[in-house]
């Protein structure tokens, strides 16, 4: 919403400076976005006369001008390239040191092709007052030499732009803004009554409203015998100042009423309208060439005004070209109507029209002003164009619903903490057009027709608080209460937090990737269901909710490789989607390692460098689980994983087959190809929600530690087993022999090759035996060892290596 200071002063008697008004506007909720003060910005630009213009000695296209800048000063020499620089021309001059807004430069004294130039003659584009850069400005010969150009040209009226919130229908007009400022003590509101203008003959055109929900009210009248032409200068200047193009008096009046009174109107050239008007839904296949020169295809969702020719106007949005007013218009039909806000918004969006009328009607206009607005417009038409008015035709309602709110005056303090005296409340509300009656403590507040946003007590509080001053709300300490300081994070939040720090501590870098991935990637990882497909994706490759973090991470690793960083370790902890219900959303922790980004560190290194392999991924996964508090003893590592992993270099982490916590491994080459990524890559993904919750303990004390007085004994065993036998099974077999005595089983050697038969391998384990009550005898130790060998042989077919 834009207006000029002088325009505001038509509605507000005030002596406050612009800065004060602007500050107040912002503080009462009408946020000032921009103030364009041309008089200030263009102050150094003065009116000057070219005394002589000679050909530049060294350049064909340049002239050397002597310029009279007025005030008795000596003529100034200016080199000018404009084709219209000629002797006798009155134009605009800027001295050295002037900032030229259109060029974003500050002028200096220059020497152009050997001739000194002390200033510049300017085009309109250089002053940013129009796009005209064909030569320097040409002012009338009688323009006052030496005067400030902006003042003289009437550009001195600052333009204020407000970022209006969608609830304030009344402030889409200058009149409403003035009312708010007056309530905030910024001056006196000018609100003269609008006198009805008596019609001199019945309106020859009638209107039928087919659907009152689309058009609750409709008023019109004819003014016969008008003479249309350019509108008066004051009106043209205002419209130009806020960025509108003056067209002709009748059209300019409608634009003026739109901005002045938040009352959009439409004018039809009555001679171009055939028969009576009907307000109805458009029919499929109907079109309208609108005033913006575009043709719109209509359908029954669009409300139109039609006559016997067909559609003449898009109701409340834009008129039609065919029935528009031009300089030949003699009879004008002025329409002032009420339209359904939602329908206007939807139609505007659908047709892609952002008109000033739509802007107001979709917020809602003051229903009680429908007829007075028409009267005011009639008055302006008669003042500017003459003519004789008809009687007014009104269909539907010309007023809104009465809203009276029972308002306990204590509400102001209850919600805002501010103490406002009752008379002050009444003063504020009355200024805003409300009526407050009754002694209290519960008063009656009647809401004015132009405030459809006010419905209840809280709205009244807001009105009082914003005018009284939000800055007066007392800063009040918020007691945290007597509650004990307890952890506020849920177990899942704690796991999320720890998983991140655990992975970062392993040298991995956290990424945050998109929640959406491509359909093909989603399908590859078991997603891509229709319920997770975005109906209106922002881009084709952001179409499906991710069932995994890995698609994003693999793409990220590849993007880094493409940028020349090929050894990358990335992780993410975030949401994944297995369905569209809340319980289908999980938090996953996932990582990818590429190239030489092993657990040891990045890149090739003198200390030995290794490609990241499946064991790095396994270590990452287990580190996350440990940090997140998973029961590590209960975890099972099972060979193999989903189809997108290498079948022989992948594993599944589970607590029984029913609870799979995650996977790790090398990405399947087929999957890499489908994702457009180079490998090899190793990845893991664990789902933090699936970690069983630890039992709550009554105290924080740790269990008592048992420190044995007896030295542990370590025995090494090497078994020859089939190549397919899992080391994990050997370890478990050994551990199972005596869970009390055997406190550790460690695989210290894995060997295949010379000395071992094909298809076999040797696995060395170190078993730690911890005596509890007494030192073990050799026989006792041998007995345990024999049991270990027997058990491993039984479970895995392994033979003790000779």
């Amino acid at each position, binding site marked *: 919403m834009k207006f000029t200071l002088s325009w505001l002063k038509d509605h507000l008697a005030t002596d406050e400076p612009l800065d004060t008004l602007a500050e107040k506007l912002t503080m009462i909720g009408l946020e000032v976005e921009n103030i364009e003060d041309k008089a200030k910005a263009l102050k150094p630009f003065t009116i000057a006369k070219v005394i002589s213009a000679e050909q530049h000695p060294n350049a064909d296209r340049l002239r050397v001008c002597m310029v009279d800048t007025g005030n008795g000063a000596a003529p100034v020499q200016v080199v000018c390239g404009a084709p219209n620089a000629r002797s006798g021309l009155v134009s605009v001059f800027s001295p050295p040191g002037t900032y030229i807004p259109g060029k974003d430069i500050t002028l200096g004294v220059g020497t152009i092709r050997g001739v000194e130039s002390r200033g510049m003659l300017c085009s309109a584009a250089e002053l940013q007052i129009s796009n005209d850069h064909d030569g320097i400005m040409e002012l009338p010969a009688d323009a006052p030499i030496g005067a400030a150009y902006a003042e003289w040209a009437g550009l001195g009226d600052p333009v204020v732009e407000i970022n209006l919130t969608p609830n304030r229908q009344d402030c889409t007009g200058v009149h409403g803004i003035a009312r708010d400022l007056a309530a905030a003590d910024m001056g006196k509101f000018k609100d003269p009554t609008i006198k009805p203008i008596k019609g001199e003959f019945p309106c020859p055109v009638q209107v039928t409203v087919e659907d009152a929900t689309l058009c609750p009210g409709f008023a019109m009248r004819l003014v016969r015998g008008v003479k249309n032409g350019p509108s008066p200068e004051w009106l043209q200047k205002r419209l130009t100042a806020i960025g509108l193009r003056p067209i002709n008096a009748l059209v300019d009046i409608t634009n003026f009423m739109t901005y002045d009174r938040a009352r959009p109107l439409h004018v039809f050239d009555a001679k171009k309208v055939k028969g009576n008007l009907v307000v109805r839904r458009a029919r499929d296949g109907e079109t309208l060439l609108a005033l913006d020169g575009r043709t719109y295809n209509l359908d029954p969702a669009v409300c139109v005004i039609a006559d016997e020719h067909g559609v003449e106007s898009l109701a409340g949005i834009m008129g039609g070209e065919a029935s528009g007013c031009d300089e030949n218009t003699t009879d004008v039909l002025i329409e002032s109507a009420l339209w359904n806000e939602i329908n206007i918004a939807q139609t505007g969006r659908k047709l892609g029209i952002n008109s000033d009328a739509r802007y107001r009607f979709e917020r809602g206009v003051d229903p009680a002003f429908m007829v007075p607005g028409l009267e005011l417009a009639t008055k302006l038409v008669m003042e500017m164009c003459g003519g004789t008015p008809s009687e007014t035709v009104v269909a539907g309602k010309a007023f809104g619903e009465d809203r009276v709110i029972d308002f306990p005056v204590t509400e102001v303090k209850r919600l805002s903490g501010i103490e406002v005296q009752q008379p002050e409340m009444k003063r504020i509300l009355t200024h805003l057009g409300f009526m407050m009656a009754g002694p209290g403590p519960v008063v009656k507040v009647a809401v004015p027709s132009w405030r459809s946003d006010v419905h209840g007590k*809280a709205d009244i509080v807001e009105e009082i608080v914003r005018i009284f001053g939000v800055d007066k709300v007392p800063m009040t300490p918020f007691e945290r209460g007597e509650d004990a300081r307890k952890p506020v994070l849920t177990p899942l939040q704690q796991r999320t937090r720890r998983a991140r720090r655990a992975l970062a501590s392993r040298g991995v870098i956290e990424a945050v990737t998109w929640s959406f991935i491509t359909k093909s990637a989603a399908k590859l990882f078991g997603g891509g269901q229709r319920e997770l497909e975005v109906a209106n994706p922002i881009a084709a490759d952001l179409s499906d909710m991710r069932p995994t973090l890995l698609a994003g991470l693999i793409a990220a690793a590849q993007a880094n490789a493409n940028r020349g960083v090929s050894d990358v370790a990335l992780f993410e902890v975030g949401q994944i989607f297995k369905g569209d219900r809340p319980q289908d959303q999980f938090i996953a922790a996932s990582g990818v390692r590429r190239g030489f980004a092993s657990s040891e560190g990045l890149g090739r290194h003198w200390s030995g460098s290794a490609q990241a392999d499946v064991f790095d991924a396994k270590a990452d996964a287990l580190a996350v689980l440990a940090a997140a508090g998973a029961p590590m003893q209960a975890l099972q590592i099972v060979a193999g994983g989903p189809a997108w992993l290498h079948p022989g270099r992948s594993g599944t982490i589970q607590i029984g087959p029913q609870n799979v916590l995650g996977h790790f491994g090398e990405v399947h080459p087929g999957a890499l190809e489908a994702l457009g990524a180079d490998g090899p890559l190793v990845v893991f993904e664990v789902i933090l929600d699936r970690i069983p919750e630890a039992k709550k303990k009554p105290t924080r004390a740790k269990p008592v530690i048992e420190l044995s007085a007896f030295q542990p004994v370590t025995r090494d065993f090497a078994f020859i087993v089939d190549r397919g036998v899992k080391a994990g099974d050997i370890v478990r077999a050994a551990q199972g022999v005596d869970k009390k005595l055997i406190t550790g089983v460690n695989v210290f050697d894995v060997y295949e090759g010379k000395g071992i038969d094909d298809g076999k391998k040797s696995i060395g384990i170190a078993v730690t035996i911890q005596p509890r009550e007494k030192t073990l005898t050799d026989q006792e130790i041998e007995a345990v060892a024999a049991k270990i060998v027997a058990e491993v042989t039984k479970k895995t077919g392994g033979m003790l290596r000779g």
Partner: protein
Amino acid sequence: MTDLAQLQAQIIADIAAAANEAALEVVRVAALGKKGSISALLATLGKMSPDERKTQGAAINQAKDEVTAALAARRDVLKSAALDARLASETVDVTLPLRDAPTEAGRIHPLSQVWDELTTIFADMGFSVAEGPDIETDDYNFTKLNFPEGHPAREMHDTFFFHPKEDGSRMLLRTHTSPVQVRTMLSQKPPIRVICPGRTYRIDSDATHTPQFHQVEGLVIDKTSHLGHLKWILHEFCKAFFEVDHISMRFRPSFFPFTEPSLEVDIQCRRDKGEIRFGEGEDWLEILGCGMVHPNVLRACGIDPDEYQGFAWGMGIDRIAMLKYGIADLRQLFDSDVRWLSHYGFKPLEVPTLAGGLSS
């Protein structure tokens, strides 16, 4: 020179000439071993007269002691030389560069770090953390939050929707974390004090908007909390978060469907060559929206607005992270460029605490 003196001199010379411990041992055996030259002399003592034994014995024993001492001294020298030689052979090039420790190489994303900072500050004020699903219903995202029918945010051009279900309803991607407030009010009895951080989505994509972003909202519902408390909390938060002693904030009336009265909050700052300093300067920077929870929202969530009252606020996590840490382009947060992440990310041991400071 006597024979004994000659022998001793010879042995001492041999000791000195011994090049290593093995050679020295040969000398020792030759002198002091069972058949050694001094041992042989000692054996002759038995056959001597007492007088002779007195003089000779003392002399031989002295020679033996001197030889023994010389052997020990030489052994020390040789041992030390041998150790020196071994150590010299074990020299490594300690200037070889090492890899960064994993705790130095790993990074926490700025958004996660700021998440931790936020929860640390608000936990101290007695807030707990509530979360909810990204895929929401229209009811929780709009209707219960007092968005009227036909509100532009409910249109396909602003909000991501999923395909309609058989009953005509359609799920959407939440456009703010306010549905978490709704879920909290529906499931908990007041008093309520929560913050709701999370990922949110809107159809928007330019230098300052991404289709996904992050918000943290706060909600207080009880019988007494008003705008004055809200102002205090936000003030305290901004000082703590931006780690400054003073901060100037400007509250201005605004409009949101779900609060009444509604306010927007600007903080005073100074912009200097791309750097923003808070607590000084002439500029106002908008950072959040807030207000008293609208009675319609309370009612929709089963809370009587005449008995209970409260306030809510919301701000962009991405935005405050960018402001605090001088991040210029929002889109880079989601670019996963390790060069950027290594620069703007945080080391894993830089855990924000109130005791140790949020970011130091």
